[in-house]
Each structure stands twice: as structure tokens, then as C-alpha cells.
């Protein structure tokens, strides 16, 4: 992956820059030794690495602002970082950048049940937001698979989703306000405990801007009362097509499950070998979960099973206990781990119109044969957000190149059928050069204008989101 060459003038000024950062931050908040900065050289897209010039780990919004002021004055690029779980290279450093990690900022600032919100510092992990309110019966809805580790800062930057967005939406639909520190070190309050923007919806464009508009240090998040209960049902089908049709029919029938998860045969086989969840031997399976009281769940599942039966399922498995429900989810939740046992994998994230599911799965199968690389599909079928996992050998550069080409072909296919490159992981560096497949130059120009306004020097999170050739003039200015 091509990255811009580091600015030699910045590299030469390292000592002075570090000294200026140390002057405004506590001693333990600045890391400059190469042995220690190496811990920040990559995220979960670990094929690409580059130790930064320095790392700062502030403990407050004021310290974030102070660090940014120094970097701005010195013209040093800044890569804001949450927990570093990005699958898209969203926090890959450059050699001349300062990584600004918010991990030490993880306090709960306010919990307000009457107005249903929580305000947290953004270094807090996704799961521990729910952890702060669950004893009182509330939860924070967006639930990315990495929720144990990923930080709200990254969730806001990437507009993260999860398995339950069909009902509850993604991060942007659950974000009410932020404290944003600009590259100049100015602290802005945007949104809050009230609904909607009074003027332009800046919050809406900040969410999902991949840390390129400012550093989000605090967030006001919508919390919801937990439903009385939830229960999954598992269905096996003879083909991907039939499973896809069943998804469409469920949605059309007026039931709105909280989750509809899909796994194909390679994935089912791998998870069975790994997790022994007792999944049926079939081409495709769905896990559908609904919420409510016992009686409400019975009614919804009754309707869903009735629809499923019309598609000649090879298996319909209801859960009659907490134990059985856990077992249904077990395979799905260990799917990524299971695939990882077989080989290295690249996880894609394109979204397609639900109606195109059978066609896209068929084409992926054909491409898999052409490239000679295995693919497993496990994804959120209700909203069309696919996660093809391409298996390859990371130690073989030739196979990595082949895998990347295959991945790009799948994403192009997603766009071709009316979908997009990324549903919840973000563009990062991984899909940067594919942006031209989805967007015309003027579409990207419009997006880059927003960056021009917030970060005129183009210092924040360099080389992400937009193709390098498109941003060269702005970065050089």
C-alpha cells in the first residue's frame, strides 16, 4: 500500500517537536523511544506497519488541545487513535506523524436515564458503555464484533455498525453530541442532550469522517431500555439463493427482527470444526433474533418459522433455554476465529441491496475458483452488509497480492449491483484507491471540501479515505 513519503524536515526536527510536546503534557504522556512507538505501528490491518515519529496519550480534552496546538504549529501530521482495532488501516501511522491516542480518556461523565443518554470520554470501550448502565436495565445499541476492545472514538470515526443495526441503526443514529478538538486546538461543542441540529448538521458529517476533521474527545450517546427478552432461531437451507429469498420474505412480511445473520457452507464447516456448535450440514444458514416479552417473541418467531417452512428448510431449530440460545449464537460469534484457524484471512465489508444477495454469492463463488482462493461468507443479511473472508497465506507476498485483487473485484461487484465498498469498517487505506469505483471526481471533491474547512492544512489522519493522487495538491499546499 503506497503511503506518502515522510517529510524529511519533520523527521529532522523530531527532538524539538518531542520537547515541545513534553512542555505541555505530563511526562508519561509522550512516547518517543522507537522501542515503545513500535506498539502503535499498525492496527488490525496488520499487513501494513510504520512506527510514528512519536505518540501522545493525553488524559483530558485540554491536553488533547495542547498537543494539537503544538503539532499544528510544527506542521506535523496527527493520527488520532482509539483502540487500534480498525480492519481498514484507519490508524496506520506515517513516519513523520504523531499518533494521538485517547485510550486513557475513558471516564463516564454523566448518566441521565430520564433523558436516555450517557456522556463518556471516547477512549472508553464500546462494551463498557453498556457496562455502565446495564445494571439499571439500559444498553448502548451499536455492537461491532470488536466491542470488547474497540473505543467509542473509533466507533464515531468509522460510524461503526454491528449485528443489531437492522432495528437500532448504526453509530450515527445513536450519537447525540460530541466535543471535537480541531487541528488548531480549538474545542468545539456540537449537539448534546437535545435532538437535531439548530443549523447545519455538523455532527452528521463528523461521524464517519475517519478522524480527518478533528479529534472527538467526548460523546453523548443515546441509551435505550433493554427489551424484556430476546431469542434466536436457526434455519438451514439447501442453497444460498433460497436462504436469500427467505430473508426477503421475512422483511416483506412486516416482522422486524433485531438481527438476521447469514453463513455459507465454508463458514459453517469451519465453525463446526472449531466451536462444535452443532450446526446442520447444509449450504446456508440463517440466525434470526427477535425481541420482546415471551408471548411477543413466540408470536414473531411463529410468523418467521411459517415463512421459513415455505422455503423447504433442511433444519429449523428453536431455542427453548438460555443455553440453547447461546449455542445458536456460538458458531456465528466464533466464525471469524474459526476461519483464522484455517489460514490468514482478509475480511471485506461491502454492502449490497438485499435483493442482489443470491447473484453476488454466486459470483463470489465463481471468482473464488478463478483466483484459486477459498472464501467464507458470514454477514448481516437483513441490511445487506456482507463480510466475505478470503483465505490466504500472509507470508506469501504473491498470494497477498492475489488476495487483494480478489477483494477489490468483490467490492467492485458490490458497487456494480447498487451497493457500496464499505458498510461499517470504513475506507482507511485499504479501500482508498477503490473510491473511484463508487464516486466520480466531483463527488469526492465535494467531500474533500469539508476536509478543507475543518483541516485546511490536511494534517489530520493523512493518506486515508481519498486516493493519494487526488489529495496530492492539497497535502503539498
Amino acid at each position: 500500500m503506497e503511503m506518502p513519503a515522510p517529510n524529511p524536515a519533520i523527521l529532522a526536527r523530531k527532538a524539538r517537536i518531542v520537547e515541545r510536546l513534553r512542555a505541555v503534557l505530563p511526562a508519561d504522556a509522550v512516547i518517543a523511544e522507537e522501542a515503545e512507538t513500535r506498539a502503535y505501528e499498525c492496527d488490525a490491518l496488520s499487513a501494513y506497519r510504520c512506527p510514528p515519529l512519536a505518540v501522545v496519550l493525553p488524559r483530558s480534552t485540554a491536553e488533547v488541545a495542547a498537543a494539537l496546538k503544538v503539532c499544528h504549529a510544527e506542521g506535523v501530521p496527527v493520527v488520532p487513535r482509539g483502540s487500534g482495532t480498525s480492519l481498514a488501516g484507519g490508524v496506520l501511522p506515517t513516519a513523520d506523524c504523531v499518533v494521538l491516542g485517547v485510550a486513557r480518556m475513558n471516564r463516564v461523565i454523566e448518566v441521565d436515564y430520564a433523558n436516555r443518554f450517557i456522556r463518556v470520554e471516547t477512549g472508553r470501550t464500546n462494551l463498557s458503555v453498556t457496562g455502565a448502565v446495564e445494571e439499571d436495565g439500559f444498553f448502548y445499541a451499536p455492537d461491532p464484533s470488536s466491542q470488547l476492545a474497540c473505543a467509542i472514538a473509533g466507533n464515531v470515526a468509522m460510524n461503526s455498525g454491528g449485528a443489531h443495526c437492522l432495528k437500532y441503526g448504526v453509530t450515527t443514529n445513536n450519537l447525540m453530541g460530541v466535543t471535537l478538538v480541531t487541528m488548531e486546538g480549538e474545542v468545539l461543542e456540537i449537539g448534546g442532550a437535545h435532538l437535531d441540529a439548530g443549523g447545519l448538521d455538523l455532527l452528521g458529517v463528523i461521524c464517519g469522517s475517519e478522524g480527518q476533521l478533528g479529534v472527538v474527545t467526548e460523546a453523548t450517546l443515546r441509551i435505550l431500555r433493554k427489551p424484556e427478552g430476546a431469542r434466536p432461531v436457526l434455519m438451514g437451507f439447501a442453497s444460498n439463493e433460497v436462504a436469500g429469498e427467505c430473508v426477503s420474505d421475512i422483511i416483506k412480511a412486516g416482522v422486524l427482527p433485531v438481527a438476521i445473520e447469514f453463513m455459507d457452507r465454508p463458514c459453517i464447516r469451519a465453525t463446526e470444526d472449531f466451536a462444535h456448535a452443532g450446526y446442520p450440514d447444509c449450504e446456508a444458514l440463517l440466525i434470526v433474533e427477535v425481541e420482546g416479552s415471551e408471548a411477543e417473541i413466540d408470536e414473531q418467531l411463529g410468523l418467521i418459522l411459517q415463512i421459513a417452512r415455505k422455503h423447504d428448510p433442511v433444519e429449523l431449530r428453536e431455542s427453548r433455554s438460555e443455553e440453547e440460545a447461546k449455542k445458536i449464537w456460538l458458531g456465528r460469534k466464533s466464525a471469524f476465529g474459526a476461519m483464522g484457524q484455517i489460514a490468514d484471512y482478509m475480511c471485506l465489508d461491502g454492502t449490497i441491496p438485499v435483493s442482489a444477495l443470491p447473484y453476488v454469492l454466486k459470483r463470489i463463488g465463481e471468482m473464488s475458483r478463478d483466483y484459486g482462493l477459498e472464501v467464507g461468507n458470514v454477514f448481516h443479511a437483513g441490511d445487506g452488509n456482507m463480510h466475505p473472508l478470503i483465505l490466504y497465506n500472509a507470508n506469501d507476498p504473491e498470494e497477498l497480492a492475489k488476495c487483494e485483487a480478489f477483494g477489490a473485484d468483490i467490492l467492485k461487484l458490490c458497487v456494480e449491483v447498487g451497493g457500496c465498498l464499505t458498510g461499517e469498517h470504513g475506507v482507511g487505506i485499504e479501500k482508498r484507491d477503490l473510491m473511484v469505483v463508487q464516486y466520480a471526481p466531483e463527488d469526492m471533491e465535494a467531500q474533500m471540501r469539508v476536509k478543507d474547512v475543518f483541516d485546511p492544512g490536511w494534517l489530520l489522519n493523512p493518506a486515508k479515505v481519498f486516493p493519494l493522487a487526488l489529495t496530492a495538491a492539497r497535502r503539498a499546499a
Partner: protein
Amino acid sequence: MRPEDESELAEVVRGASSPLRIRGGGTREVGRPISGAVVETGAISGITLYEPAALTLVARAGTPLAEVVEALAAEGQRLPFEPPDWRALLGTSGESTIGGVVAANASGPRRIMSGACRDSLIGVRFVDGTGAVIKNGGRVMKNVTGYDLVKLLAGSWGTLGVLTEVSFKVLPVPESAATLLLPGIGVAPAVTALAAAIGSPFEVSGAAWTEEGAQIRIEGFAASVAYRAERLQALLAPFGEVVVEAGRDASDTRWAGLRDVAGLAGRPGDIWRVSVKPSDAPALVARMGAEAVALDWAGGLVWALTEPGTDLRARLGGFAGHATLMRAAPETRARIAPFQPEPPAIAAIATALRARFDPRHILNPGLMD
């Protein structure tokens, strides 16, 4: 001017040398009075894609809202955010367009459960102030590819671009609905009761207050609605009498009235729309000295009818939220900023964004200032 399609509209904008007033159906005459040649989007009309099984609808911006609502209803679906019809309230006539709904980010009572218009909006096409046609988002409900200009365009009142096409995530219409009414309850206890209701697991999709009392809506399968009505009735018993009004039709009529703020329509005076932290509503209402108020969003949205020419913001003092003057004489809207003035740093960003998207200042210039 009434361009026939997107490319003709782009030509009109490119060729313009003086300000343009962008108009959908002309049903929302909000903002600073501005001058300029009127550009209507009404001819750029028609539903371009509707896939009920994918819960997706795409329509050109000038499509009448009524046409969208009808097409969805034929498949048992609807726009989740319950777009309001403010014609009677604002004293306007004409045909509301789907693009106008988006430009105003207009949302009804279901906003507390299903989000605002901007939350259901998944894609836009628009013509910016240079005449360039720009697309963002698409027709799938999960999409984080590039910056989210979809949200930025929603509620921008035609000041960043002229919308030409909008895409929505839609939802099925539930089988049944019911309203719980707490007759005669005052604003302060009502807001507490509404908070208890929406903080319960019983999936409240409307929480409003009018002089009739507090009103709480639940929707879903018939048995589920009956069950939740019973549970909510018990939960709210400490607040006084709780009457259950069952049935889809009764609910539709009642909530259409609440959605359109029918209680304040047709009465003389100015109309303000105030977005607040719900629990702040009672104290703010007391300070308003309004002739009448109506609350939605569990207290988070306050509609106020005030004497003509009143600067409501001066009475409210500092508060977390914003107040918009929705209906007033042009001279009042020239004197009192209809949109809440923003802190200088935020206002500077908004000004800079407008300068980038509309460098010649020709798209509804000054409307939101």
C-alpha cells in the same frame, strides 16, 4: 423557473448570476425573507426505485410527499420518521415535496423511536452552487464509504445544494396501534410520565402533550400492543387516570393531529419550534409566557404560539438546545433570526462550508443566517 430534469437544473444554477430561491412545494416558508428568482423542483419528479423486500425507496426530489406515502402504503410500508404536514400550522398551501421534507429535516412524533428524517435518509443527489451534480450515499442502509454528506444536506434548507434525488430506508406498517391518554395532566408531571414511558421496555413510538393531556403511542402486532398497553397502564398509574384508546384508525387520526401540531394551527401569533433536553421542558415552558404550547418527543420538542414579534430566545435565556421561528411576518423574520444564532466558531464552520459548496452565494443566500 421550473427545470424539467437534473441536468436542466444544473444548467440553470451554472448560468445564474444572481441569487436563486429554491422551492419544492412552497409549504415551508421558513427563514430570513430572501429575494431572488424562484427555482422550483416540482417537475423533477417520480419514484425511481422501490424495493419493498429491501426496505428501500428512491425518489426524485420534486416528487409529491403524498405520492411517496401512497406508494409505500400500497405495500404496507411507510417512512419511519413520520413526515409532518405543516401547511395548516404555517398558513401555507401547495404540495409538499419529498425533497422539501429532506431540506427541512422534518420529522414527526416517531422521531423518538425511529430517528429523524436524516436517519432514514441513505442517499442524495444534488446540484451545488457551481452547478456540479454530486452524489453521496446510495441505496443501501449500511454505508460508510467516504464522508456522510447525506446528513449534512438534510436540514440545510437548500443552502448547500439543490436536492434532485433522495433515498430512504423504509419500514413496515405495524398491524395495530394504541394510545394511552393521561387526561388533563399538567406539563411538568406529564414530562416525568413520558420519560417513564419511553424509558420502559415497551417500545413507545410517540410521547406528546397537549392541553388534552399526555399521550403515548405503541405500535406492533395486535397481541403485543394489548400486552404493552396493559403494562404501561400499570407503570403510569401513579400519575393518575390512564385511558387506553385502541385501534389503528383512531391512532392514525390522533397522531396525525399531533404530528401536524393541529392544536396551534389557524390561531393568530408567531410559531416557535424549540428543541431541548426533555427534562428542561417544563421550566422553559414556564419562562416562555406563550399563549399556547404543545410538546412532542417526550418533551424534547416544544411548539409555542407567541404574541407577534416576540423574541422568544430573550425570554428563554441560555439553554441547551435551539429555538427556530417557524411562522412570523416577514418583518419579524428580518429582525429576529429565525434560526438559532450559533457560537462564533460553529458559525464560522457553517459559513466556510457554504462558501465551498456555493462560492457565488446564490443558493437561498442568508436564509439560515
